[in-house]
């Protein structure tokens, strides 16, 4: 029910508490935090710059979020996606889904991150050690993960 696109870092505990406080119908909260992984085997810090499409990003994240609420009985949800330059270990993305029951919280959270990977207009430019940079290529595995949610209409529920 909330999406944010921002340069700034976020705190997972604060965000979960903000979603769950004052809502005692929530029994389970699943969160996923994506971090910049060090690809250089510790030789040096990796860094990347996340570019996005302002305007469309917000629209797509809101649409993905609405879809999750349509599929699962969620009490609350949140998507935060950062942009700009990030270094190894930095948080990139946060997805939270809160529901009376843990199954729904888990499935909705997984759906949100899978979907976001292929539908949210972000692009990663990785810096390499010699000062050059390259655009990260989309992974087929991410397309497959997102497609799973299309095929599986058994998960679709009345809103």
């Amino acid at each position: 029910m909330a999406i944010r696109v921002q340069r700034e870092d976020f705190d997972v505990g604060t965000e979960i508490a903000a979603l769950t406080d004052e809502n005692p119908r929530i029994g389970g909260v699943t969160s996923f935090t994506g971090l910049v992984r060090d690809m250089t085997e510790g030789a040096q810090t990796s860094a990347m710059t996340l570019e996005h499409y302002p305007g469309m990003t917000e629209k797509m994240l809101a649409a993905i979020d609405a879809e999750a609420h349509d599929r699962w009985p969620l009490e609350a949800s949140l998507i935060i996606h950062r942009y700009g330059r990030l270094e190894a270990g930095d948080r990139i993305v946060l997805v939270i889904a809160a529901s009376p029951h843990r199954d729904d919280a888990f499935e909705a959270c997984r759906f949100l991150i899978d979907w976001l990977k292929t539908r949210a207009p972000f692009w990663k430019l990785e810096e390499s050690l010699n000062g050059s940079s390259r655009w990260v290529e989309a992974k087929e595995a991410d397309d497959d993960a997102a497609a799973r949610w299309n095929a599986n209409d058994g998960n679709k529920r009345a809103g």
Partner: protein
Amino acid sequence: MKILYFAWLRQRTGIGEEEITMPTAVRDVATLIDWLKLRGPNFAEALEDTSAIRVAVNQEFATLDTELSGTEEVALFPPMTGG
């Protein structure tokens, strides 16, 4: 009409955002890309492989045959790598 380029499409065309007046021959995304390619070798090269390009029309995902009449904004970009 506004045209936006992201990621390596922005780098190769050398343009992030531009305002164009569409020729009447441009009806859909495919003919728009054909027309943009005529504007110089950097455009021709960046737009050569349309299988590597994703399109949004008025900030909604679109395909090569999406019609452009009444369109305010077209964006061209590679497959997304967020999350």
